[in-house]
């Protein structure tokens, strides 16, 4: 399970720390790559810019994507992921604060695999992260 990378796209430092803590508390020991805006996320995925030297075999098992991001927002990142042959089959979980209909509709419309609203209650948050990890890293069979 160690080589299964989780890509966390999150600009909020608190949320980043809490998500990492929640993963740890859920006994998910996978490597987590954190990128802090949409541009960095795409650079990482397509091996560009600061990630030009990244080994191409390093493909994340699941992407946890926030919607509200600096530079390029989450929906645009999702669109770019789905438009590229290298990434179009990657599981993308939207992890956001928003419960607006429009965000849900747009996310699923662009091919999000899952949509999770971050609960304020940290206990619930840990539970959600735990279930996400269990499902996407263990139960779910990724595309070959």
């Amino acid at each position, binding site marked *: 399970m160690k080589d299964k990378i989780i890509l966390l796209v999150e600009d909020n430092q608190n949320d980043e720390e*809490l998500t990492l803590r929640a993963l740890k508390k859920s006994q998910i020991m996978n490597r987590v790559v954190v990128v802090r805006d949409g541009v960095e996320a795409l650079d990482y995925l397509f091996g560009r810019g600061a990630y030009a030297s990244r080994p191409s075999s390093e493909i994340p098992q699941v992407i946890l994507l926030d919607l509200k991001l600096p530079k390029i927002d989450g929906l645009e990142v999702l669109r770019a992921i789905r438009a590229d042959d290298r990434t179009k089959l990657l599981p993308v979980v939207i992890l*956001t604060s*928003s*419960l607006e209909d429009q965000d849900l509709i747009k996310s699923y419309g662009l091919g999000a695999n899952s949509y999770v609203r971050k*609960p*304020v*209650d*940290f206990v619930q948050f840990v539970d959600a992260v735990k279930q996400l990890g269990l499902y996407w890293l263990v139960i779910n069979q990724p595309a070959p």
Partner: protein
Amino acid sequence: MPTEVERLRAGMRVLSSAIAAVAEATTDSQRLLETLVRQAAELIQDTCIVLLKTPEGPTAAALYDPDPVLLEELRGLYEKPLAGAAITIQAMQSGKGAVFPTLDLEATRSHVSPEMYATFQRIGLSGSLIVPMRVQGEPYGALTILRHRQHHRELDELDLEFAQDLANHAAIAIANARRVDALRENEELRHAKEQLGRANKFLDAIIENIPDMVFVKDATKLAFTRFNRAGEELIGVSRDAMIGKTDYDFFPPEEAMHFQGMDRETLRNKVLVDIPEEPIHTAHGKRWLHTKKVPIVDEAGEPLYLLGISQDITNAKHHKQALLDAKDRAESANKELEAFSYSVAHDLRAPLRAIDGFSQALFEDYGERLDDEGNRLLHRVREQAQRMAVLIDDLLALSRVTRHDLSPEQIDLGAIASNSLAQLQRAEPDRVVEIQISKSLSTVADPRMMGIAFDNLIGNAWKFTSKTEGSRIEVGQLHKDSERVFFVRDNGAGFDRQYAHKLFGVFQRLHTEREFPGTGIGLATVARIILRHRGRVWAEGEPGKGATFFFTLGDPEAP
């Protein structure tokens, strides 16, 4: 052959009857002429004709011959005015008659039409006489006798005298009849004028009382010829001052030019011109008009007048503008609300997550180093962060209810209520609540909105019966004043009716958080949902005996 005496007697008879006829015949001169001509023709046993003076020449007005076949033929010949009837015209103008005991037919050939000549020749016209018909020197026509029956004697001076007497009487009759006709025409004219006057007054009254400005301008100078009261009030100038003047005397030059340009266009194209909006500077300031201009043309289609009708739309225009402005403001306010809600959803929740999350982390990692009071306080921090999250979510739900468009459809409110109850039961499987939901609660409403409304109403009932023995929730309907009223009733904590009006306000609570938790937003949300369905919502209750929430639904699709 009749004797001279017999001739005189017969002549006297005709004359006296002619006099009697003239005395009577004041209205029908045509019948009088017919009678005279006939009697004369029967007396002399030949043709008698009365010719009247017309601009086209002498024209036969009455004609008779005892032979009906010949009479028809003669009528045909004399149908049109006679051309070149020199003898007749001369007799009329000179006032002197003439008798031709023997006639050289050949000599008359040039004076009559070929057809007439042919007839005269066939019947053997042998003599004639002609006498003028005059009254006080005014020629009216002539009376002619044609002699063509061979067995009769020749016409003589006595015949001429008789004929002249007869013609004189006929002339008087015609003059009288014409005078009577003229009088009658005068009378009719006067009558017509009266009627016209009445019709005009009626029209004036109508025009005067039309609430829009009505004006008439003459087609050439475009000067005002008519102006009504509404016009006087609108422009602020009396009609006496307006009549005879033009637009240039009252309005700024460009405005007058615009008005007259439209007038000319109307008169040129001869069709109604509709000007939906035009400014006008009146004595009371600038106003806006909706004007229709109509050309009034004569029989030949030439424009005589221009009729204008102007409605003052200033107020309507202001109202419309105010409405548009209000709509703009509402739309931009709505957009702001959208943006605000989005930012509330995202940005306000993030710090709450941090507060809750790090408090929990503190508790997990350092809880052992804190005493009971420290842990209790940490717990309170988390509790309040979570409460604020609920508040934010409830406020978002409330704003969503206002922002989202309704999509009404046929739904069963009973099923929606059951669904709300089932959720509550799942969250608290051990609670026993007696539920009663009426059947036939189907109606037309937005299913999602009604779901939110019932989540709140049933949620309240569930919450406020939590401390009640044998708690009961009832969902049903009743009919009041032919209106369908739905209700959700519980036997829970109830409320003091003096605070009933506060129930539906945002953040209004009738219980402490300790008694029954809540944000005070739920019923405000219900009220907005019902309001958006154009219905009403109200509540009845009594402390300790329960509460009933009633609502009606209007036509949600009505604008």
